[in-house]
């Protein structure tokens, strides 16, 4: 999701300006809390006092909303984003620790509580993780939090030692002056009593002074993942806790017609069976018992309002739509006119299936409801939205909804549901079990068949070519469901009926094509859809980059050079593409017989990634052997995490390029588990090499931008060796 759009480019720019006061008031307009005014506070507020009281119990001295120090010399950092593998614990803590001049080994991280006032994503105006914004929105804020804490430590030392603060040095967690020296822990009590500095008075480090940012040796802070001690929602154990599973309608939109729970209730360990609006709930002593109980339910479903079409029929409708005029999402010049008068037109239709997120930890959530208050334990990605939705359901205020965030076993977009779907389901269940903590667990089948997929799409791209084989005009039509329509985000993310996320990447195209038109059809289908790692770019980068390659081949041009010629006004994509080409040995490194090489470049979430892929082909099968990637993401706060995210983003996109596909037969989802939804395994993982462009620009997105280029780069490599232009995902050679 490109959430920078929520507040336009100005908000995005401000987040990196280092001037907190300029963006001190953002208005929440989503999640049902319209009108609440936010202040970006490092210090102060009643919420801080409450949190300080909690910290005091552990002996931690709170310096500001993000930093506390315990007398045993531990720097505890509160992380306002969800750690789901993308490395936010490490990245945000790095920014704080660098400005504090803390010793990396003394830093520990915890998830911050749900508190929009203190922990809003500065690009979203609400507390939430997504759109690859975690570092981009907080880079300056976290550094200010670290610098503020350091300033208080220095003030305390200056007072104790009777020396000027300006002469005091801080390095690796030690404050010193002449013969005086003290650890952060030794100064913590006195320093926490110092007045908090005005953040605008703090001078942040010049990049040349960074000690941790940009360095290779900062180990990740989301620890315990190598020995089973890291705690995820699935691992939350509370006294008296019960486990719930839900029988959902097999078709989207189906309702319970009749229920006989006699057999289920007779099973030992089954505590309760009841209906909620999303299905029939079985609450039991443990997961297995709940699952067995669910298997004993006799349910008749009412499909009157259900989606009963097959995905083939749905895509057929989309193919028909791209032959008709859509809503104009972008128009420059008169592309249709140029095309109609051209004698040389290239046209291709592309097709994309529904995709499940299939994160390793199936959806789950622990809730305890007492009267009109709730306490939650889960991998919470949208704290503000979820908290507001829960409060609304309970008819109470957000102050009565406490959210404890734990690690998430992957997300890829699924946990940030604008409707808080599975979260509200867990609260509805807990409402029926007052005072008892209940863990809702979706089975893998529930998760895979549960919808909220990356939507299916059909694109039609047509270009007219000039005498040099360059596109003079391009006309694009996209047909597919809107992920925003009907959600609380629609008001912000939809403009004149256009869901900008459906066309992002085809609009704002970086290639210099004089006349452009992008049109959109957003048909309503009863299959719930949602963002999926890199959102619209998952499909737009594919059609754009495969189409450009087709035009290059038609012109008899080298695909890299053809792109560079069209990117003369885009130095950033030019530099990234050139770096990838150079590192991959494009045009110089020979391929073994039967191998092909392909390229794609795309910009998303503020960052540019180019990928060059080598494939080997044997008959109708192929293997992606090697990927060389280059990324410009501004300052790479942690280069190792950046490389890991590019590797992971490639694997995730490659999985969809090779095999992932959700299909429906008469409204029933055909895929149920990993034997039918065949995700990437180790034997298909290519060698990946990632190169990071050195930059002093503010950090931009890293979690998602590596995904869009991989599928088109693979398709282009296959085209190079087989001559086949593949326009449908997943890729299959004829």
């Amino acid at each position, binding site marked *: 999701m490109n959430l920078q759009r929520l507040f336009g480019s100005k908000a995005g720019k401000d987040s990196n300006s280092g001037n907190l006061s300029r963006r001190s008031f953002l208005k929440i307009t989503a999640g049902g809390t319209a009108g609440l005014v936010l202040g970006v506070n490092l210090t102060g507020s009643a919420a801080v006092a409450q949190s300080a009281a909690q910290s005091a119990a552990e002996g931690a001295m709170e310096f500001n909303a993000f930093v506390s120090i315990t007398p045993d010399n531990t720097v505890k950092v509160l992380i306002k984003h969800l750690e*789901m*593998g*993308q*490395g936010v614990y490490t990245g945000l803590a790095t920014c704080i620790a660098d400005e504090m001049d803390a010793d990396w080994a003394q830093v520990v991280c915890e998830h911050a509580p749900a508190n929009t006032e203190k922990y809003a994503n500065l690009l979203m105006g609400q507390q939430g993780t997504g759109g690859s914004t975690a570092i981009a929105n907080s880079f300056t804020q976290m550094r200010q939090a670290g610098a503020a804490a350091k300033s208080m430590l220095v003030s305390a030392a200056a007072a104790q030692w009777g020396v000027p603060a300006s002469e005091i040095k801080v390095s690796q967690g030690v404050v010193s002056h002449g013969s005086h020296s003290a650890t952060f822990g030794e100064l913590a009590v006195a320093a926490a009593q110092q007045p908090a500095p005005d953040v605008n008075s703090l001078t942040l480090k010049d990049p040349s002074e960074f000690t941790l940012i940009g360095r290779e040796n900062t*180990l*990740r802070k*989301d620890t*315990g*993942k*190598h*020995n*089973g*001690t*890291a705690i*995820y929602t*699935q*691992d939350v*154990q509370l006294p008296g806790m019960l*486990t719930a599973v839900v029988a959902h309608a097999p078709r989207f939109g189906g309702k319970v017609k009749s229920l006989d729970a006699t057999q289920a209730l007779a099973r*030992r360990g089954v505590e309760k069976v009841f209906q909620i609006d999303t299905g029939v709930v079985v609450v039991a*002593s*443990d*997961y*297995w*018992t709940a699952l*067995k109980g669910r298997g004993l339910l006799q349910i008749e479903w009412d499909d009157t309002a259900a989606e009963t079409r097959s995905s083939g029929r749905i895509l057929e409708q989309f193919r028909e739509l791209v032959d008709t005029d859509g809503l104009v999402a972008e128009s420059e010049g008169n592309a249709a006119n140029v095309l109609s008068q051209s004698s040389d037109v290239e046209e291709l239709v592309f097709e994309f299936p529904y995709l499940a997120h299939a*994160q*390793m*930890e*199936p959806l789950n959530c622990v809730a305890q409801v007492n009267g009109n208050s709730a306490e939650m334990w889960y991998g919470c990605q949208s704290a503000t939205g979820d908290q507001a939705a829960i409060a609304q359901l309970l008819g109470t205020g957000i102050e009565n909804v406490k959210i404890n965030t734990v*690690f*998430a*076993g*992957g*997300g890829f977009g699924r946990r940030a549901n604008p409707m808080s779907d599975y979260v509200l389901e867990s609260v509805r269940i807990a409402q029926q079990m007052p005072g008892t903590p209940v863990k809702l*667990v979706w*089975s*893998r*089948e529930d998760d895979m068949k549960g919808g909220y997929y990356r939507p299916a799409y059909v694109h039609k791209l047509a270009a007219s070519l000039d005498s040099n084989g360059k596109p003079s005009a391009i006309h694009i039509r996209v047909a597919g469901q809107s992920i925003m329509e009907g959600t609380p985000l629609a008001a912000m993310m939809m403009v004149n009926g256009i869901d900008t996320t459906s066309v992002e990447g085809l609009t704002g195209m970086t290639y210099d094509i004089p006349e452009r038109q992008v049109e959109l059809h957003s048909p309503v289908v009863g299959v719930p859809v949602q963002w999926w790692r890199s959102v619209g770019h998952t499909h737009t980068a594919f059609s754009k980059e495969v189409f450009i390659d087709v035009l290059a081949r038609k012109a008899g041009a080298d695909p890299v050079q053809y792109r560079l010629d069209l990117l003369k006004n885009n130095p950033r994509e030019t530099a990234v593409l050139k770096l990838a080409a150079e590192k991959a040995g494009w045009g110089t490194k020979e391929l073994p017989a039967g191998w092909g090489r392909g390229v794609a470049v795309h910009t998303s979430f503020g960052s540019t990634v180019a990928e060059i892929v080598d494939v080997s082909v044997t008959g109708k099968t192929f293997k992606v052997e090697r990927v060389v990637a280059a990324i410009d993401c501004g300052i790479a706060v942690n280069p*190792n*995490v950046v490389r*890991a*995210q590019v*590797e*992971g*983003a*490639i*694997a*995730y996109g490659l*999985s969809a390029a090779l095999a992932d596909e959700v299909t429906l037969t008469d409204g029933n989802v055909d895929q149920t*588990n*990993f*034997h039918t939804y065949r*995700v*990437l*395994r*180790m*034997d298909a*993982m290519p060698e*990946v090499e990632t190169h990071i462009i050195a930059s002093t620009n503010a950090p931009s997105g890293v979690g998602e931008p590596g995904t869009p280029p991989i599928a088109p780069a693979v398709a282009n490599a296959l085209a190079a060796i087989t001559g086949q232009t593949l326009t449908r995902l997943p890729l299959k050679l004829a």
Partner: protein
Amino acid sequence: MAYQLTINGQTHEVDVDGDMPLLWVVRDHLNFTGSKFGCGVAQCGACTMQIDGVAQRTCALTIANAVGKNITTIEGLQSPQALALQAAWVELQVPQCGYCQSGQIMSATALLEKNASPTDADIEAAMSGNICRCGTYSRIKAGIHMAAAQVKNAGGAA
């Protein structure tokens, strides 16, 4: 009914139905939560434990079939191979979300305990039953090679 299980060298007694998979006995009744639930049908490997030294998917192994066996979970790993793998996982920063990694390390441990010098092909054969949606496969492979080398070096020095 009541069953006795030997887990990480300790005897545990639980009273559950005989068709309950070992994974859920260990997680929900004995509160060892390091082994994860990912699919429930032996397709993803997140639940992998060692049963008498062999890596097995415990979401599809009933408690009745686990009685009398030596069960090792991620919490009970002690072999030089396992410790070397865990050290390599930290050094190479293998985990991202981490949810699959207990199972990855259990499978990798079983591999190294019977094959001290696995090739890439050996690793792929042993590890392709373990899914990682974060795509940490290259680092897992590198971690196994690193641990294998470390164990060999330590053995040579001893």
